């Protein structure tokens, strides 16, 4: 079992004033351990929605209609279906096992809290035990330290703190400390948790190559540049060493030079944290640079999945071919794809790409093509391609 995440038959609909939008239709894809999977497609084709479905964060009026998303939480154990587990369980996964980096770092950060506050929040939430242990060590050191007048006064407080930290270290959701944390003044006894988590935050900021991390941790988002903000968001996403990092066009809103840095950073962190990455982009060039495998999405469905070299060398689906032809290359005239993206309210029958497809035939208008593996690891959903290579599943 090498798959980390298996999406099967995911269907999402939006119920709007204008009508029902079939935003995702029967999406199937696998993401393996320690791999970077690129999800490529035009704006509005459902890439972000796929990501939000994984975290079960599809917002109204959107609704996940059917399908399942199996996620291998612990190695070896049975994978869980993210769409059926309880709200508490999915919350424990969000931000710790699966985390997400958004397109606009400016919008993704809360303007009224400091960077340090926002990152330490994740740490305090998911790594509470670890934080409490660190705090416990500090308190123990204080208790064992030199005996003096001040330590004599502080000793009862330290003892109380120790009791609380011990309890959290045993059970992060213990009732006692949770009640204490809600009472004004008394909750001050837990102050070391915040302090320790800020220290860990600063380490994280160092990890994502932010200069002067201690100062940045105290700053508000608007005081930072776009690139710095995105590094902060990445640090937040990596705070709990997630199994899967979803990066939703993390470089689109940044300058080209910053883009390259962020991509490099992601590559480097991936090996360091041993995470898989679901990398969402509309830019095939970026996908080529960072991804191991690529899935091409069109109008709510996947049309081709293949290893990255394969898809660039031997694209099979007409849409993939058209996309590749549209990428500007020096000396070559780029080809625009004819026609327009279909209206999500009035999707074409059969293959959704057929009105724009140069080689569409009768069957394309009537039947929705199914995914077939034409070469090892190379899946295509197209009526015409299946014959082309001969390895048809029909």
């Amino acid at each position, binding site marked *: 079992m090498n798959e980390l995440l298996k999406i099967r038959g995911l269907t999402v609909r939006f119920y709007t004033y204008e009508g029902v939008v079939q935003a995702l239709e029967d999406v199937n894809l696998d993401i393996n351990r320690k791999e970077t999977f690129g999800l490529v497609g035009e704006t509005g084709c459902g890439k972000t929605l796929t990501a939000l479905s994984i975290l079960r964060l599809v917002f109204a009026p959107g609704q996940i209609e059917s399908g399942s998303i199996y996620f291998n939480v612990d190695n070896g154990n049975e994978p869980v279906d993210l769409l059926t587990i309880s709200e508490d369980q999915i*919350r424990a996964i*969000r931000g710790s096992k699966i985390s997400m980096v958004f397109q606009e770092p400016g919008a993704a*950060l809360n*303007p*009224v809290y400091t960077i340090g506050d926002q990152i330490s*929040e994740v740490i305090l939430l998911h790594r509470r035990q670890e934080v409490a242990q660190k705090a416990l060590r500090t308190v123990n050191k204080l208790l064992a330290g030199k005996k003096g007048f001040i330590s004599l006064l502080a000793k009862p407080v330290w003892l109380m703190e120790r009791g609380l930290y011990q309890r959290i270290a045993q059970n992060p959701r213990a009732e006692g400390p949770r009640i204490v944390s809600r009472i004004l003044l008394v909750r001050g006894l837990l102050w070391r948790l915040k302090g320790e988590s800020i220290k860990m935050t600063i380490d994280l900021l160092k990890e994502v190559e932010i200069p002067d991390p201690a100062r940045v941790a105290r700053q508000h988002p*608007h005081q930072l540049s776009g690139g710095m903000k995105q590094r902060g968001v990445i640090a937040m996403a990596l705070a709990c060493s997630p199994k899967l990092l979803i990066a939703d066009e993390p470089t689109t809103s940044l300058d080209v030079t910053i883009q390259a840095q962020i991509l490099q950073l992601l590559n480097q962190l991936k090996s360091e944290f041993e995470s898989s990455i679901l990398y969402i982009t509309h830019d095939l060039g970026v996908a080529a640079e960072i991804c191991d495998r690529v899935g091409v999405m069109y109008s709510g469905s996947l049309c081709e999945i293949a290893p990255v070299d394969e898809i660039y060398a031997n694209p099979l689906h007409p849409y993939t071919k058209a996309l590749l032809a549209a990428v500007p290359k020096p000396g070559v005239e780029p080809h625009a794809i004819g026609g327009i993206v279909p209206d999500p309210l009035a999707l074409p029958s059969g293959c959704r790409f057929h009105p724009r497809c140069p080689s569409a035939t009768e069957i394309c208008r009537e039947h929705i093509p199914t995914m077939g593996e034409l070469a090892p690891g190379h899946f295509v959903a197209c009526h015409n391609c299946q014959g082309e290579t001969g390895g048809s599943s029909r």
Partner: protein
Amino acid sequence: MQLWGFALEFRAYIIRRLALVVPVLFGVSLLVFALLQMFSPVERAALYVTDPKQFANITEIIEKYGLNDPLWVQYGNWISQIFHGNLGWSKVVSLPVTDAILNFLPATLELAIFATPLIILGGIFLGSKAAAHKDKAVDHITRAGAIMGWSLPTFWLGLMLLMIFYGFFSGLFPPERLSTAMNIVVHSEAFTQYTGLHFLDAILNGNWQVLGDSLRHLFLPVITLTVVQLAFIMRLMRSSMLESLGKGYILTARAKGLDENTVVSKHARRNALIPVLTIAGYIFALLVNGVVITETIFNYKGLGWWAWQSAIHLDIPSVLAFALFNGILFVLTNLVVDLLYAKIDPRVRLGGQAA
């Protein structure tokens, strides 16, 4: 702007904002002065009368203060009188206007002390509840309640409350500030009036009877003042909260694994409060408007009651002094609000936008 290369600092913002206050205050005084000009010199002379005996020689006063002089001279005289604390004579209470304001202020303050926290905290709480449960039952009920509250004429609400809680439940929550017996106690030798706020004085004197009586009298006016404005803040808070809940950082907060409660109360509410704060000055204006009507209904002798009495007795100096007093107070409130705003929202002072 170019003069101040460092204009993006907080201090510069304060200076700029303070500089805005002066012309507005000048305009406020001009407007009140213009209203004053609608009266004949004889009527205007009442402004300078500080003792009823002086009414006998009114022509002398007209002469002395040059009430037939060119306008700008008169304005100069008028404003210098104001700076000397001389706002005229209040016929209604037979006191100089300045003293009347000082006398009536504690009663009104007492109302404000109870009503303001209720309005603000209640409005914020209900508004965010409604937004967090948009289109659910809670939302519909609070929304319908808000629209109804906002449509209630303050004076009618007050009278209805009186009819029920003073009439039907005979004398449960009576009008006026204190019952006759307690009024005698308060004005007796044994009772020291430290602040003029009856409930506070009662606590300081340890007189629980006065405290209870004072609170009983405060109940209905405070409710009347609160209901209408609570509705206003609630509506504002709801839409502000809805906007905030649609922001990217809310998605981030959810993606972090935070529970809905934390998302709403920590991440959304703090941001949603910013626009609510910007209209805090407006809440003050509403409060003053409401105070005049509320005090009139409940015969609660505070500034608003005095203003009403002065208005129906066509006591010009008092009404205009009251308007001027509130104008100045309003300008200063807005100043404080803007500075607070800049302090809370770090983006304002850096954006360098004066409100």
